[in-house]
Each structure stands twice: as structure tokens, then as C-alpha cells.
């Protein structure tokens, strides 16, 4: 068990090392002088020179790479060129809407998808099953920003049921801010429910044909007990995996959804950073988000241990 965890940590470290290398390469892919690009057309050559000096861009590429790795390893993600503050601070300041948007939409997705997936699997081939599978496929095909715009128009602007956009202004209290996340969460939740529905249906189908389910029925156990106690419990493992994997999907969705609803989250931050060529922010966001993904999938694996006594590492 401990050896397994140690091995996993080594694996995670290797993956993070590659993540850092990829990020380093991406930022240096930009053709031309990054310092001049970051400063824009009005900058003087002296400004560019000073920035190059500050960012260490005039040192050999391997020296840059080594100092980049060292800097990240010490927990320093550099400073934003636009905000003139450490990237970690900037990210922390923008994390709240993204974190809660992702969390709420994940909850909404599970609440929609899990029961439908279970009933679908249980009534395989029925009209209900066909309808839910088709609807899920449709939901996965609609661009989330388009759904977002339509929902915004018809459930907020025209009816006033939800706040139209924004995060409640600078004085908004926590409750007010969360109120602004309801509609975006519904949009993102619907999009993400498609994948969870398909997985929970497939997992349940798999389990329902297992011997122990037949045995449970043969023992005369009540049907709902068979389904909920025996089948669902065993179908949970693949379902938990997909919930872990949904994280990447949630962040991608959040980037676009934040833009629709004008939420000051990580997504808006990155899009703004791209338009302003604020490379340290792009770089820092990629590293933090990829790191979280690696960590969450590790935690999901650990969760298996708790759910399934057969899994031993």
C-alpha cells in the first residue's frame, strides 16, 4: 500500500515534470522576441531590453529552462506583466467563481445524470432508455456557450429569474455572488451530465448482468434492494473515475461559460492574458490546472480503496 503510494508520487512527479516542460516550450514557441510581443508595438527597444533582462530571456535556453524548473519547484510562478503582482496571487483572486462554478455544475450534472443513467440501464431498450441516451448525445453536441447565451436571454434578460451576468459587483456578499453562479452552473451542468449519464448507464448495465445480482434476486431480495444495495454499489467505481475525469472538461467548459456570463474567474483571466500576451499568467494557469488534474485523479484512485474492498494496492 505504502509502496504503491510512493510509486504513484514518483509517477506524478514525472508527469508534472513533463507538464512543466510542455508549458516552457509553449511559451517559447512564439515567433519573434517575446519581450517585444508582450510590450506591444509602442515599446522602445530599451523597454524590450529591460524586460528581456528581467525575464532572463537573453540567457541560453537551457539555463532558462533550469532556472524555470527551479523557480516553479520553489513555488514561485512568476509575476503577471499586466497586474504587476505574483501570478499565484492573481490566480487566487480569480479562483472563487471558477471553483464554485465547477463544483455546482458537477453536482447538478451528477444529480441529473446518475438517476437517469440507472433507470436507463435498468429499463434497457425501453422508450425511456432510448430517449435519455439520445438526449445525452444531443446535450454533448450543443456548444456550451451557445446554450449559455440562449439561457441567459430567455431565463435572465427576458424573465428576470436569474441575474443576467457578472458577479454582483465589488460589494456583493457571498450569497449574492453564489446567486450569480446558478444559471452558469445549470448550463455547464447540463453539458457535463451527458458524459456522466453514458458512463453510469454503461457501468450499471455491466453490473446488472453479473452473477451476484442474479444470486441476490434468487435469494428473494426485494428488487430495489438488489439494484441500490448490490448493483449501484458495484457500479460506483467506473462512475467515480469519470467524475474525476470530468474535471478537465469542467475547466474547459468554465473558461467559455465565464466569458458568456462575464464572470471574473480563471477562464476570463486566461482569455484576457492571451489577448494581452501576459505569458507568466498563461504559464502559471496551465501549471496549476494540470497539477490539480493530476492530484484529483490520484485522489480518485485512493477513493477506490474506500469504495471497493477488493481493490488493494
Amino acid at each position: 500500500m505504502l509502496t504503491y503510494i510512493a510509486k504513484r508520487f514518483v509517477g506524478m512527479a514525472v508527469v508534472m515534470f513533463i507538464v512543466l516542460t510542455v508549458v516552457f516550450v509553449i511559451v517559447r514557441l512564439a515567433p519573434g522576441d517575446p519581450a517585444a510581443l508582450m510590450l506591444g508595438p509602442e515599446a522602445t527597444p530599451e523597454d524590450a531590453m529591460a524586460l528581456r533582462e528581467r525575464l532572463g530571456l537573453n540567457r541560453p535556453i537551457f539555463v532558462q529552462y533550469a532556472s524555470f524548473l527551479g523557480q516553479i519547484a520553489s513555488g514561485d510562478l512568476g509575476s503577471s506583466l499586466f497586474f504587476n503582482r505574483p501570478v499565484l496571487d492573481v490566480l487566487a483572486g480569480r479562483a472563487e467563481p471558477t471553483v464554485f462554478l465547477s463544483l455546482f455544475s458537477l453536482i447538478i450534472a451528477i444529480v441529473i445524470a446518475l438517476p437517469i443513467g440507472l433507470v436507463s440501464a435498468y429499463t434497457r431498450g425501453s422508450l425511456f432508455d432510448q430517449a435519455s441516451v439520445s438526449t445525452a448525445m444531443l446535450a454533448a453536441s450543443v456548444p456550451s456557450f451557445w446554450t449559455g447565451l440562449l439561457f441567459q436571454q430567455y431565463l435572465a434578460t427576458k424573465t428576470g429569474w436569474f441575474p443576467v451576468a457578472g458577479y454582483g459587483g465589488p460589494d456583493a456578499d457571498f450569497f449574492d455572488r453564489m446567486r450569480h453562479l446558478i444559471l452558469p452552473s445549470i448550463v455547464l451542468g447540463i453539458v457535463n451530465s451527458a458524459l456522466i449519464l453514458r458512463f453510469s448507464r454503461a457501468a450499471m448495465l455491466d453490473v446488472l448482468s453479473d452473477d451476484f445480482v442474479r444470486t441476490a434476486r434468487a435469494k428473494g431480495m426485494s428488487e430495489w434492494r438488489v439494484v441500490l444495495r448490490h448493483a449501484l454499489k458495484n457500479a460506483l467505481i467506473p462512475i467515480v473515475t469519470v467524475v474525476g475525469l470530468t474535471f478537465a472538461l469542467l475547466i474547459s467548459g468554465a473558461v467559455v461559460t465565464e466569458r458568456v456570463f462575464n464572470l471574473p474567474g480563471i477562464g476570463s483571466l486566461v482569455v484576457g492574458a492571451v489577448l494581452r500576451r501576459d505569458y507568466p499568467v498563461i504559464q502559471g494557469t496551465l501549471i496549476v490546472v494540470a497539477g490539480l488534474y493530476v492530484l484529483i485523479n490520484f485522489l480518485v484512485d485512493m477513493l477506490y480503496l474506500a469504495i471497493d474492498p477488493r481493490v488493494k494496492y
Partner: protein
Amino acid sequence: MADTTSMPMEASLAKVLVQRRAVILGLVILAVFGAAAILAPVITPFEPAAMSVRNRLTAPNATWWLGTDEFGRDIFTRLIYAGRVSLLVGGGVAIISSLIGIALGLAGGFFRRLDGPVSRVIDAMMAFPDILLAISLVAALGGSLINVVLALSIVYAPRIARVVRASTLVIRELAYVEAARALGVATWRILVHHLLRNMVSPIIVQATFIFAYAMLAEAGLSFLGVGIDPETPTWGTMINTGRQYIDTAGWMILFPGISITLCVLALQLVGDGLRDALDPRISKEL
């Protein structure tokens, strides 16, 4: 696919596919969009950039089938020309990411020494959310059509690589591969003729889904204003500009959205049908 032994399987595959109404529906939708993209100048009398200021923001009518935009440009015409771009991006990404993924996957699956590094690289690339990685790559490369295709190909190549690696690990151990090695067949010949040819189907299934994801991602990038340059009409940019006029000219975002949805849905229907047809275990369940 010249050897006769695989013929019966492929014939039955085609039959299974045609028997599925969903697959036919998907293929028909794709054919319509494909034909419209190819025949664009024949179908519509207008130019995609032709403005008619007097007719700006006109609701759909007999002349302007799907209405006009803020410059009086015909939405139907722009929709068709934008479809060209969207389909080109989707198709281009499906092909290029497959090529990269095949090379990576074969290398990792066949050469044991490379398996560790290749697998870790796949893991690392999959740790980035697709839109986020694509935005960063486009930011670095610059927002042209080719760079968007390239960026999305890099984003989706690991998915193909994973499928190819897994298939390679299985096929590598089969007797005929061992026989070919014993006969002294060149490694590249084994890779192409014995391995690659036997995993064409799972690659096509995965590439079909990547086609769909890439279309969605491209639309997302264009919507965010960090994709292909905004002068080129794409479904994403049409929605992005249309959102300012959503109160008065809802048709501006309605039709591009429907187009994206239909194309992505069609690709998923075809991909699903292919997968089920190739996996007899699943097709029995349905």
C-alpha cells in the same frame, strides 16, 4: 485493405452500419453540410463579405433566407462559407492528430523502452483541459487557420496515441507478428502491415469523435476571440458577433448554433455506430 481475408468482415461492417438508422441520419447530415461547403458559390448568389447597409439586421425573408447581420451580409451565405472553415478544421485536426497519435502510440506500444516515456507524455498532455491548452498554443503560434488546426491536433493527438498504444500492446503478442519477426521482416514493415492495418477501425472511430470535438473547440476558440482571425467567417465568430444583437436579431446566433450542433451530433452518431458495429459485445446489448 487489399487482402481478401478481411473482406467478409468489412462487408458485414457496412451492412451493420447501414442497418442503423442513426448512422444513416448522421451520414445524411454530414453529406448535406459537406455538399453545401463544396458547392458554396453555386448554392448562394451572394458573397460572404458583401455588405448591404440598407438591409442590415433584416429578419429571415424570401431574399435573405436566414436574415442578415449587422453589416447587411447574408447569414445563409456566411453560414455556408463558415461551414467550409469549420469542416476543414475538424477534418484537418482528425487527420493530423491521427498521424501524430499513430506515430506516438506505435512507438510506445512496440518498443518496450519507449513505453514508459511515451505513456508519461500522454498522461501529461491529457492533464491539460483541451480549451485551455488550445488557447495557449494559439496564443503562442498566432491565430491563423493552420495554427488553430495544428494547436487542436496537438491537443487531441494523445487520445489517438492511447488507443494505438493499447492495440499495439495486444497485437504485438499475437503469433503472426512473432512469425513475421522470426522471418526477418523489417521492423517498419511489421509496424505498418501487421500492426497498423489491424487497428484501422478503432483509429477511425476515435478520429470521428476528434472531428466532432475539434469542431466544438474551434467554435469555442472563435467565440472567445482567440481563434482564427475574426475576418474569416466561422460559426463561432458568427455567434460571438451575434450576441450583441441577441435582443433584436436572434437569428444571428440561432443558425450558426444549430449548424454546429447538427454537425457534431452527426459525427457522434456515426462514431457511435461505428464503434458498436466493431464491438460485437456492445452491439448485442443494444
